[in-house]
């Protein structure tokens, strides 16, 4: 008799270092089912690195990652995807020379069973699966509002649409947990508002738990159940949006000491960052 685990994901005391640099230092995070959790922190705080640890891109130096009570440390990324964790990337990484639908079909990989022999022999399993997966891809496209682009090359999509496509692709494997790395980066206010809506629907309609990294404080304060603040690889605070806004340490870590409104300052920073090229791979 198994009881339903308390959290969809538990990361306990994660530490990751690159040579001398400790990018993530003893950080823990619990993600309840159907929750939206934001990770914030200055550039280079270790947010993306923390994501990479959860999704199997990097192995942790110490600490454990439990997915529904099951340890997933050190397992390859394709198996992480099989279990039901999906992610998007800070600088969009689509399969650029494939169509939008094909991108989502790749996202469904963990749910497909037909082999190359099925394909050559055109077995009924192959035909059925092909039909179902294309239907599902079309449904997902409709859900994220990209039906108009369905058969275009991914590289020809406008920027905002590419971010949405990454999310649609990530939904292909029926995830329990979705990791979004700066989903609103570089978007204008309208696109940002639409993205907030989409993220909320993901939770309310599709019952998916979401962890997102975001620099836009308006977004973060708007949708998060809980916020985790990292600085120099360390967790300096975690709490509800209200708690974080009034946390003196957070304000100092970001902005130096001062009384100005955190949200204000942050959006200025974001505007400045928008032009800066992101230096990392992920």
């Amino acid at each position, binding site marked *: 008799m198994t009881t339903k685990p308390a959290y969809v994901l538990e990361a306990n005391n994660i530490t990751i270092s690159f040579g001398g640099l400790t990018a993530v230092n003893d950080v823990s995070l619990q993600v309840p089912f159907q929750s939206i959790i934001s990770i914030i922190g200055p550039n280079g705080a270790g947010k993306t690195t923390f994501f990479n640890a959860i*999704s*199997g*891109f990097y192995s942790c130096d110490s600490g454990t990652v439990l997915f529904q009570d099951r340890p997933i440390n050190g397992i*390859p*990324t*394709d198996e*992480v*995807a*099989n279990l039901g964790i999906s*992610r998007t*990337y800070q600088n969009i*990484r689509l*399969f*650029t*020379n*494939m*169509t*939008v*639908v*094909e991108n989502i*079909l*790749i*996202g469904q*990989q*963990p749910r*497909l069973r*037909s082999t*190359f022999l*099925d*394909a*050559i022999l*055109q077995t009924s399993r*192959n035909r059925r*699966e*092909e039909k179902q*997966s*294309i*239907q*599902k*891809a*079309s*449904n997902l*496209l*409709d*859900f994220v509002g990209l*039906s108009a682009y*369905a*058969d275009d*090359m991914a590289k020809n999509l406008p920027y905002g649409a590419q971010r949405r496509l990454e999310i649609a*692709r990530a*939904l*292909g*494997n*029926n*995830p*329990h947990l979705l990791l979004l790395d700066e989903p609103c980066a570089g978007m204008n206010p309208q696109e940002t508002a639409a993205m907030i809506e989409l993220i909320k629907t993901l939770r309310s*309609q*599709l*019952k*998916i738990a979401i962890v997102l990294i975001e620099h836009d404080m308006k977004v973060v304060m708007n949708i998060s159940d809980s916020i985790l603040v990292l600085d120099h690889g360390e967790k300096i605070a975690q709490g509800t949006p209200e708690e974080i806004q009034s946390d003196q340490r957070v304000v100092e870590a970001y902005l130096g000491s001062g009384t100005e409104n955190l949200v204000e300052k942050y959006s200025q920073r974001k505007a400045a960052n928008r032009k800066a090229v992101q230096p990392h791979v992920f």
Partner: protein
Amino acid sequence: MKTLFSKSIQFGIIAGVILIFSELINLTSTFAVILEKLFNSAKTGKTASPLAIQILTGLVVFFIAYTFLRKKNGSKSHTAGQEIGSGLLMGITAGILISLLNVILGTYLAKGQDIRNYLDAVSPEVISTFLFQTDIANAVIRYFIATILGGLAASLLHLVSSKTNVSGKISKFIQKIVQQSKIRIFLNKYPYMTTILTLLVVIAVFLLPVLVNAYAISVLGIVFIYAIMGLGLNLIVGLSGQLVFGYVAFYALGAYTFGLLTAPKPFGIEMNFWPALIIAIFIAAIGGLFVGVPIMNLRGDYLAIVTLGFGEIIRILINSNLLADFTGGPQGIKNIGQPTQPALTAKIFGKPFDDNVWFLYLILILFLVVLYVVFRLQYSRTGRSWEAMREDETVAQACGVTVSSYKVLAVVIGAAIAGLAGAIYASRNTYTGPGEYAFMVSVNALAVVVIGGMGSIPGTLLGAFIIKGLPELLRDLENYRMLVFGALLIAMMIIRPEGIWPVKRRTLSVTPESIEVLKKDLKP
């Protein structure tokens, strides 16, 4: 004005240098002979007539000048006088250069010095051909006439076409035809017509062997064998994105396995065609597994170098005295088996086909089988996973593609197809030896894939025709065959870097269902 002046001289120099270069390697007179043969079928011998050389010289200047004028006038237009002056200037510049060369060469000839020690192609006969068998002064006048006429013709043509905008109208007209072509609309309306058209093409291809002569049959045979190889390599390089260089190794494995199984020596097994073919494919696939597993974690350059090494190892092994008892060493294997023609064909067509015709049919049928297999693979989950890996290996894996097994799968299937090609090749020649498996074969197979368009199935077929068929068509060019071939390849890659027939993506999307379906679907 000044820029037009200096640019005209610059392009005149370009034309002149091309002329000089072509003369020094004796390319001009070879082309001149071909040109003559086009208009005068009675023409024999290899000496070009003065007129043909003059026309060719004029044409070179004409093309260069016309290209220049067209580009130049994109920004601002010139008066008619300027245009003609520019053409004249280009003609004169080119004329000066080519005359200079001929004056120098003519002087050497007059002194009785042989300069073949330095310039291999320039024999005294060649020089006198280029001097039009007359004296130097006369030849110089003729060259100037040719180049100046070429330059003037270019400027006149450009004047006429830009004033009346003929070329623009023609290109618009062609575009219109292509866009609104009845055939297109017709095909869109009745999708099954595409199938019928494809069938017609297949039938036409199948009629070929009985229609063409023996030489064409042998060329077609090798073209389709390369097309089969190309389809296999296309899976590995074009789809899964692994730059495997030693592809010839699998080809050799197939050929040798087939040879050893069917030849009377050294083992005397003398197996039938079909079981031997299947075993050959199987052995090549196992070879693919042995190569594929160790290289699955290599990327890019490392992969290319390691697989290149593998190709060489196989070639050296089959050539070595060490294995001579098994492989025949440098002598290779003789009397390799051929398939017997089924009695059925004789019954249907009255008499059996000639052996070479029958073999070409066999190659065509096997080609179609391979075509079907790769087509199915490409447009399936497997093919898409390969492509995703090619696009971004890390992300593909994070999407759930088991990258290493898909990589090995691509190499194994590609190797099996190469093994098939090798076996047919050995059977067709009834002989196989180490000389057949040089590195060049890998390069050619790779060229077949790249020229046609990576990942494109029809492109691969086209690539095979260009790589193996075109050089045969260019036979008249003799020594310059490979030079012209190389130039054509370069030109193609500049004009269409994505390949001649790039992949066309399929339209897959269907009408979406309601969100309720998605909700149920996505229930984790």
